[in-house]
């Protein structure tokens, strides 16, 4: 009978469904590039024998998933993604606090993420916003090279700059929040309004403008330096300059999910990643984030944060969701609705 | 399982319908009616399209559920049983032969369905094919057969299950005229030989007269009249039945008086004595069969008439006549001395071809 066979098929699939939760498993959601995530998962698995199930998702997707799973978490560890999103998750009671014994050796900025999130996440890597440009396109069009935020207002750049849309992109939010902390909110929005004349598009994705620069689709775009380093390694004519006025930066965090089903394994991973050896995995797969551990192997391709002028970024204040909503609404009202 | 030939004539009611009715939403296809079909007889459901005859057949088959009433087959209440659970078989108008199976698989299908092993089923199916004159055709695809052969396969497929009742839904409508005549005789012969109970739907009165033990004439979801072919032809109880069962002239006359079983009827200047069939005095409808009209020379004793059209048909001649009571259609056996249009004639009736019906 069809009903019977359908029923049996259904039951078979049901039995398929049980997640393989053998002893010593770890479920990880991972925000950075897939190669890096895979490298981390495999190394940890090789060293500890703990079976890692890893999925790569953007930090927005991870936050959405953690929210949806809140009543019944299936994730143990969340690796990567900006401190602000981790703080947002912490506000939503999605994370649990943990202080690793290995934390003491980290850079100050990494430990500061820990403090600002009430111990619920720890910085693992960092990157700063720079102004990227396409070397060849700039030469072809005889454009001067940008060196500061104010340079971007030059009339020659009309239609050559691409920015992400803060409604959908965390990178865009980081840029705007940085400008606000560099000057003040009024001046930052005034700047964005004037910059608007040179902007050809506000993209949905934060990495899209930088990729457009790499492929010569647009000349200039502010973007994170570590992603730019990867593109340059791949052979694209992309260069980066750090604005003289100062720039904002991001500290990528790592956290343990509240109600994690494998808390012991999660803590083990947490401790493991805060060692120099684990931090060397990134450069081995063409990922050039600044590691949180001073003991990690140095490489000229890793940007040196100490030579870049950074704003004093307050992750707690700008990670607050009310602040975020207010800034986004203002952006929508004052920038998003400007005529092209 | 015994061979189909041994099926003894059934007796008693093979099919009984009690207050059966079928509605589709607001449309009533069959109004509540009772019908009994005796075992071993061939009963025809006859009527114009849309009269409910096919619906009635499908109600017996179990392909439709009645809105009211009950169906008994071989004495058992089968109202709630599905088609497969009733011991009935059906020959479809389109034959509905399975195009992806060969002839033998088609005929054996029902046997295999009821759990018979394939070899046994095939042997029985071969026998059934032989019975319908298709021995050796078993391995052909149904699409390789002629229309008449397909028809026989459909009959064999239905017969092989030895059903209590065999149902035919306009089985001959897809065949040409000549084949239709021979097939209907074959069906009748088979039914008689095997003593089958058959319910047969058709809209062709000639076919109905030729094959039936009894005919049920239907109209607008009701039984207009049921009876033997002769009864229906000779004693229709309405103009509708009369005109449906062969050609009939319809004129209006008056019953002057009744006397015992007879009535004195006047029709213009014509006076006739006919069975009154319970009709009161006064206006009455008179049905006159065309072959009961006698035509003689002008000035005779009868209705004066004029020939409007004469059509030579080979075996006989058809006349359209104009009379004081209206136009008449007559069949005359004359083949040589035909009358021409415009001729004045006198018309009289053979009373055995004239019937009074309720107006």
């Amino acid at each position, binding site marked *: 009978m069809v009903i019977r066979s359908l029923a049996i098929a259904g039951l078979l699939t049901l039995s398929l469904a049980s997640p393989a939760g053998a002893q010593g498993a770890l479920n990880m959601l991972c925000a950075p590039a897939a190669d890096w995530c895979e490298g981390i998962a495999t190394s940890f698995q090789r060293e500890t024998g703990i079976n890692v199930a890893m999925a790569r998702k953007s930090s927005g997707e991870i936050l959405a998933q953690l929210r949806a799973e809140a009543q019944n978490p299936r994730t143990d560890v969340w690796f990567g993604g900006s401190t602000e999103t981790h703080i947002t998750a912490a506000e939503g009671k999605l994370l649990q606090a943990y202080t690793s014994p290995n934390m003491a050796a980290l850079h100050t900025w990494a430990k500061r993420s820990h403090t600002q999130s009430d111990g619920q996440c720890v910085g693992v890597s960092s990157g700063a916003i720079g102004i990227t440009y396409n070397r060849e396109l700039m030469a072809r069009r005889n454009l001067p090279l940008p060196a500061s935020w104010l340079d971007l207002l030059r009339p020659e750049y009309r239609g050559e700059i691409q920015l992400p849309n803060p409604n959908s992109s965390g990178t865009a939010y980081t840029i705007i929040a940085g400008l606000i902390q560099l000057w003040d909110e009024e001046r930052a929005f005034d700047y964005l309004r004037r910059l608007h004349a040179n902007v050809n598009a506000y993209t949905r994705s934060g990495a899209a403008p930088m990729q457009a620069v790499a492929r010569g689709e647009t000349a200039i775009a502010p973007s994170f330096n570590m992603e730019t380093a990867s593109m340059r390694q791949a052979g694209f004519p992309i260069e980066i300059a750090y604005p003289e006025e100062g720039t904002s930066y991001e500290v990528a965090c790592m956290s343990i999910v509240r109600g994690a089903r494998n808390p012991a394994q999660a803590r083990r991973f947490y401790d493991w990643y805060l060692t120099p050896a684990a931090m060397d995995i990134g450069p081995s797969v063409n990922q050039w984030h600044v590691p949180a551990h001073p003991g990690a192997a140095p490489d000229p391709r890793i940007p040196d944060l100490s030579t870049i002028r950074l704003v004093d970024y307050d992750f707690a204040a700008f990670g607050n969701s009310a602040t975020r909503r207010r800034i986004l609404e203002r952006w929508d009202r004052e920038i998003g609705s400007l005529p092209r | 399982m015994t061979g189909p030939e041994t099926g003894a004539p059934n007796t008693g009611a093979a099919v009984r319908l009690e207050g059966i009715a079928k509605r589709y939403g607001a449309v009533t296809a069959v109004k509540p009616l009772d019908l009994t079909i005796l075992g071993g007889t061939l009963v025809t459901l006859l009527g114009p399209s849309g009269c409910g005859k096919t619906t009635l057949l499908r109600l017996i088959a179990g392909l439709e559920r009645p809105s009211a009433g009950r169906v008994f087959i071989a004495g058992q209440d089968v109202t709630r049983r599905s088609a497969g659970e009733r011991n009935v078989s059906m020959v479809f108008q389109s034959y509905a032969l*399975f195009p992806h199976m060969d002839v033998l698989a088609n005929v054996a299908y*029902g046997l295999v369905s009821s759990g018979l092993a394939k070899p046994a089923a095939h042997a029985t199916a071969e026998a059934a094919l032989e019975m319908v004159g298709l021995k050796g055709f078993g391995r052909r695809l149904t699409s390789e057969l002629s229309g008449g052969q397909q028809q026989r396969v459909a009959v064999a497929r239905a017969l092989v299950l030895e059903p209590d009742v065999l149902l035919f839904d306009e089985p001959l409508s897809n065949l040409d005229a000549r084949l239709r005549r021979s097939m209907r005789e074959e069906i009748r012969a088979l039914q008689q030989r095997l003593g089958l109970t058959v319910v047969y739907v058709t809209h062709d009165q000639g076919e109905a007269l030729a094959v039936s033990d009894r005919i049920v004439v239907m109209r607008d979801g009701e039984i207009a009249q049921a009876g033997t072919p002769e009864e229906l032809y000779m004693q229709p109880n309405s103009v509708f039945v009369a005109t449906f069962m062969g050609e009939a002239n319809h004129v209006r006359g008056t019953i002057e008086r009744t006397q015992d079983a007879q009535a004195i009827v006047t029709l213009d200047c014509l006076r006739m004595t006919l069975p009154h069939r319970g009709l009161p005095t006064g206006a009455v409808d008179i049905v006159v069969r065309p072959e009961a009209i006698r035509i003689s020379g002008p000035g005779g004793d009868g209705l004066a008439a004029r020939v409007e059209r004469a059509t030579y048909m080979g075996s006989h001649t058809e006349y359209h006549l104009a009379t004081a009571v209206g136009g008449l259609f007559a069949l005359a056996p004359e083949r040589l001395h035909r009358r021409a249009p415009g001729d004045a004639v006198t018309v009289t009736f053979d009373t055995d071809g004239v019937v009074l019906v309720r107006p």
Partner: protein
Amino acid sequence: MAAGSSLFFWLVAAIGGIALPWHMQQAGLGKGSVGALGASNPEAASALWQAVGHGRFWFWPVLASLLPALLGAWPLKDRALRSRFLIAGGALGLAAIALQGMAVGIRGWSWIWLTTLFGELGDRQFGIGIGGAMAVAGFLVLLTDGLALRGLFKGDRFVAGAVGLLVASITVFTFWPVLTVLAQMLIPLGELGVAASLAERLLDRKIWGLACLEFRVNCGVFWNTSLLAISTATLATALGLAFALIVTRSGFPAKRWLRLLTVLPIITPPFVIGLGLILIFGRSGVFNRLVEALFGLELGRWIYGYNGVLLAQVFSFTPTAFLVLIGVVEGISPAMEEASSTLRASPMRTFRAVSLPLMLPGLANAWLVVFIESLADFGNPIVLGGAFGVLSTEIFFAVIGAQQDFGRAAVLAQIMLAMALAAFLIQRRVIGRGSYVSLTGKGDGGLATPLPKPVGRAAYGIAIPWACLTILVYVMAIVGAFVKVWGRDWTPTLDHFRRAFALEWTPEGVILFAGGAWHSLGTTVALATIAAPITAAIGLTAAWLLQRQSFAGRTALEFALMLTFAVPGTVIGVAYILTYNVPPLEITGTAIILIACFVFRNLPVGVRSGVAAMSQLDRSLDEAAAMLGASTFRTLSTVVLPLLKPALVTALVYAFVRAMTTVSAVIFLVSAEYEMATVFIINRVINGDYGLAIAYSAVLIVLMMAAIGLIQLLVGRRNLGRRSGPIALTVAGRA
């Protein structure tokens, strides 16, 4: 059949309730299920043992329902009595299971009023597993058996059971999640009340704004979506018609290739077309550089936004329009055109006055199908949209973007749903009014009239350049898989394939799947292989029910089935993760959620192809089988199914291909263990690793072609012994 007993299904329900673990087991089945009676861990115990040994009183009603059901399942004489017991037992059982599942969740009582009434529960439960599923299935069939015994569904147990399962599964896998996501609209925004939040979300200027009419700013996303869908539908229909006319009405020599070309985009993973277009028409693309070199014109970034998405969508959906229209054009009886030409009409007049009006319903249908496709499209806008937002991407970013506002996503989803439904209803109207196309094959003698010269020229003029462009886009895209850095370093290399599909041998001689793509590829193929036959089976059964059976609520069922198609993938994805992450049905992160998503998203395709094929099968064939004593199931398997082979192939192929290429829904549903190929690809695209993405896509295309061949081989052909014209499967997917 109705006379048979229902003991088997009673046993299913009973075993599910008594012997097997009720909840889903973390470690899978096996050792845990044996000890379900008497298990010390309540989560591993059967419902009976949880009630007896662990004081989980909420299982008593479920277990008690088995009693009346048993009385009804016993093969007694009295049908009326049996049916009453069966209906009572089945309905009570289902209600009890649903109620306890809803009421007792992972944090005790799920509803606050239960807590206020009875106090804290002090216990909790997770989602149902094998035991619960068996109990649900068992009770459901007992209920439908009871209904059949009462004479409903013509007393056919099989039909009753099939309808019951269909209704239950649509309810669980479509209506429930969609209602869940729509309920998110009511989540308050900050300090705003429910009504104010809803109003704020609904009346958002970003949705309805029309400022673009006055200034050069972006209009509301509603207008963007409408504009895009309308223009895509119009262009794709025109192109599809041109192709259909060329293929059916002209002596074009390479028809077969043209047909292949129009089918290719269907088996192409999303993004490939978008990426190919960027490479050709992007600012640094071949075309722009050429124009700049030749004419000194700078075309700039025109490909990003409306233009590019439109172009990509027309590429993607012209095949859909073509497949709908080829059936329509082929279906027009040449006799009509011949009649027209004998009445001294010129070829042009014949085409204008006869052929075109006859095609009108078909054209309208194609237009609406493409409209719905465009509405639901996610892959093209995300690659090429730039600042141009449409509903599908807007929903995506509302959930995963910086806003994280499920409520806004729900409002947008609601608008999208309303648009899709409107198009869907209009489409039903159009088709319902009757197409003039005859599929009977009667009186179709005569030759197709050749196209009038101007029409032929126009068709060629449109179709041939388009075909060339399609080839170009594909070549450009596929080349990307074989060069170092696409658009930059054209050194040939197989590196991308090596990275994705490397195989290594360990010293012991065991194959090691070292490539990064093996895992997702394996999962994708496995899940598509599981989902396709289920989709086809349910779809064809549903088609048969709709086409051949009449029962109360048939139209409603048909509508509900087709409705699942109108729900865009993004909405389904969000809805599934919200609905199935919590008990009673806790399948997030499992393979089931992906399979369910594939099955219920693609079900309408199976239904459509089944209905189309079934309407060409003489109804008396089934009736003949029924009269010959074949059970309904036997009728289906020996008569209907063999004659439906072409529809079966269509359903299987579509279900398989869609499962392999879908993105919008699964992007929310993949987990670490079950990652899908398309999600893997989009992650590479986002990361700028186009080479690997394209290489993977190329492998998927080859794989799908092989699978289509295999399906055709396995299903086989109908043997009718006559010239069997191609059954016009004018489904073309998403209608």
